[in-house]
């Protein structure tokens, strides 16, 4: 039995209220590509950070190259030969490729000074090993994301690497770039490097990985050689769980009437390739898909916060031309964003200000804010949504995540009478608040509001949606009826590799 490059035993990690890792065993052998699979929030990122020294586990042990270790810092892990490439790349945008690659190991000449020439030479050497054509003089922020990722990978190859961890590397690349990546992975594998490959693209896992470990809710749901599991078995292990009875009963009749929102062939940036969606009044339409599939970007375009490159958006039959959030709000749209702290809440302002934020006109009399009116509305919303706060003057920064989210519902439910877009509405919210939020969503739908709900929690999407669009890589992979949807069916669509298939098909055409 070969000594694993890294072996984690019974790793535990806990935060107040959540336990991302629960007695996880994980081992990577030298010369092995080990896939790490799991839905959003299963614990993959946490596990990687433990391996890479960014966080310390609360329990369990780790052995590296046969010896017990406990990393004090990411730098220590890196020095030892573990290199983690996160989804958020740690590059310096204004500096050159060469400088980024050699950030830790700038080559010096005889005088002890850094030699620019040697730096570029060494960087070019590594890049050619990877088979990429990137100018070492280019600045990072000029490069497309795929190239930036290659630079990160090149960084890993500077020193001696024994364990390479790739966190969803193919989220931003496609086609032949993926082939290039895989070729390099195979080459490293043959050199004895252990590779952890985190991805949700099952086709890719079958193509490149030797073994696979599946995480679900912080525990290992299955592990073994890739050949031992079928696609369906993998999906089942990723998602199979009992649906808790926390969703309001579905209405018998589905919503009818003309579509309130019709998106056709939407194209925007590199994340949204070709998306067509529709929503009817009173209907809850869920959008499922993995992180990076373009869901949030679609929402931003609909709301007017992002430009579109192609396709059309029709609202109540009319094309939406003036693209600004202000217009959207005026038309009765609302957008509860994914990052409430960065994009939604005014943390230093009280609840009342946060609730009234998009509708200042509603409480303005002759230029002045009607404070009493505002307070009353805020109180009403606090009551309606059961926000646990002593008064509307409390600053929202002091509320818990669940209550903050409810304040946001209080904000949008008032004025988004036509269409409400929700992006991860229960992220960072405890189970009690979640149930309440589900009820809120259901109520709004019954009042005739169209709801477009983006979520990474499959039970949630299935429990609430009348229809579900599943997105993958900027396309709509499929549409499923809410009542009969299963987690497996959704996941099946979400992990489909659409572009690769197109690329492969194109190549086949060329050969033929």
């Amino acid at each position: 039995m070969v000594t694993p490059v890294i072996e984690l035993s019974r790793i535990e990690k806990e935060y107040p209220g959540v336990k991302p890792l629960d007695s996880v065993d994980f081992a990577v052998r030298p010369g092995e590509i080990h896939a790490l699979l799991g839905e959003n929030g299963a614990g993959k990122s946490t596990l990687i950070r433990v391996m890479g020294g960014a966080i310390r586990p609360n329990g369990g042990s780790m052995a590296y190259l046969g010896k017990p270790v406990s990393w004090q810092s990411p730098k220590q892990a890196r020095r030892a030969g573990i290199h983690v490439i996160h989804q958020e790349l740690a590059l310096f945008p204004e500096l050159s490729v060469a400088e980024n690659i050699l950030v830790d190991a700038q080559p010096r000449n005889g005088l002890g000074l850094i030699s620019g020439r040697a730096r570029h030479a060494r960087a070019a050497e590594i890049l050619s090993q990877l088979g990429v054509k990137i100018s070492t003089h280019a600045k990072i922020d000029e490069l497309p994301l795929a190239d930036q990722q290659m630079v990160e990978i090149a960084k890993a190859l500077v020193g001696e690497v024994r364990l390479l961890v790739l966190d969803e590397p193919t989220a931003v690349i496609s086609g032949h770039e993926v082939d290039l990546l895989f070729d390099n992975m195979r080459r490293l594998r043959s050199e004895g490097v252990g590779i952890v490959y985190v991805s949700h693209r099952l086709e890719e896992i079958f193509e490149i990985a030797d073994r696979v470990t599946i995480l679900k809710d912080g525990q290992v749901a299955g592990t073994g050689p890739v050949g031992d599991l079928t696609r369906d078995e993998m999906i089942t292990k990723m998602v199979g769980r009992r649906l808790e009875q926390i969703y309001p009963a579905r209405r018998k009749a589905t919503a009818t009437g003309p579509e309130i929102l019709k998106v056709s062939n939407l194209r925007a940036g590199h994340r949204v390739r070709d998306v067509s969606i529709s929503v009817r009044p009173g209907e809850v339409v869920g959008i499922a898909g993995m992180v990076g599939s373009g869901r949030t970007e679609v929402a931003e375009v609909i709301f007017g916060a992002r430009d579109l490159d192609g396709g059309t958006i029709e609202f109540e039959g009319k094309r939406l031309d003036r693209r600004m959030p202000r217009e959207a709000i005026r038309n009765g749209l609302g957008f509860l964003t994914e990052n409430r702290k960065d994009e939604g809440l005014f943390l230093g302002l009280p609840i009342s200000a946060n609730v009234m934020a998009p509708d200042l006109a509603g409480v303005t009399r002759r230029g002045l804010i009607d404070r009493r009116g505002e307070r009353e509305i805020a109180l009403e919303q606090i009551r309606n949504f059961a926000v646990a706060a002593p008064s509307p003057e409390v600053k929202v920064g002091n509320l818990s995540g669940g209550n903050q989210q409810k304040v946001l519902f209080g904000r949008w439910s008032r004025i988004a009478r036509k269409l409400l877009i929700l992006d991860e509405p229960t992220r960072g919210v405890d189970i009690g608040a979640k149930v309440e939020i589900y009820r809120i969503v259901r109520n709004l739908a019954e009042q005739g509001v169209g709801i477009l709900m983006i979520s990474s929690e499959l039970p949630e999407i299935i429990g609430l949606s009348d229809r579900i669009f599943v997105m993958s890589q900027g396309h709509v992979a499929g549409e499923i009826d809410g009542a009969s949807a299963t987690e497996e069916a959704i996941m099946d669509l979400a992990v489909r590799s659409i572009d690769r298939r197109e690329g492969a098909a194109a190549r086949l055409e060329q050969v033929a």
Partner: protein
Amino acid sequence: MAPLETPLPRSRGVSVASVFERYGLIVFLIVLLLVAAALSPTFLRPANLVNVLTIAAPLGMVVVGQTFVILVRGLDLSVASLMATVAVLATAFRATTNDAIPMIFVAAIAFSAVVGFVNGWLVAKRDVSPFLATLAMMIILQGVRFAYTGGAPISTLPPGMGFLASGRILGIPVNLMTLALLAIVFGVVLHRSRLGREIFMVGSNPKAAFLNGVAPDRVIIFCYVICSVCAGIGGLFLLGYVGTVSNWVGQGYELDSIVAAVMGGVALTGGRGNIFAALLGVAVLVIINNLVLLLGFPIEMQLIIKGIIIIGAAAFYRTRLA
């Protein structure tokens, strides 16, 4: 339930710290007044207090405006230069009666508004850092001003300017009344009007403000206009005080106004603060300066204390935010 990668924030309610935040400055000021009265019998004499207030008034006017700009994550370094330029411009009115005063005010406000608009436009639409944009404006105004005066101080003031600086209406100094008026008007705008609410939103979270239908650019430009208008009015009051108009009148006010605002709890990061507290900051600053003089300390001591205060105040507010 999706496990989180980062811990949830603890819910904090009303606490001792937030109470101190609201009333700490007032308490500090009261303590300061008591200490000052105890240390120096001259402090509470009416003549001294009037003196203090007269110095404080123009600075107070500037601070009212500066608060708006800081609230939207900006700075205005051009205020002092603008004050002096407005003062110089006022002397261009070769008037012989007090009737010129309203016209002078209008001209001052118009000029200041244009300056403020340019500042705001550079910051909002051209992405120039507020520091540099207002620094450049400061230098440009300086050049214009000196070119007009030829570098020499002007001693012929329009009649009535002296009245502004030291006159009284119904026993209340005019400059104080004007300050109060400005503070009330702009206080209402900031803390009670829709625009004021939008200002706080833009300063607190510009992206969220945009997503809630606010036009951040317009709001930002407006703040700079208000700041300049307040500074311009303040400049008129500095005019009559000394009897001549030097080219450097109001020097140092730009930094003092920032110091006073920071002491009053206006956060440089934007979205937090109120005018009343900023004016308290002015009071603290001016009283300390006055105390230093009354106690016979060298005037330079004022500078040292000012420096310590501003660092201390910023650190105090910062550590409590964390």
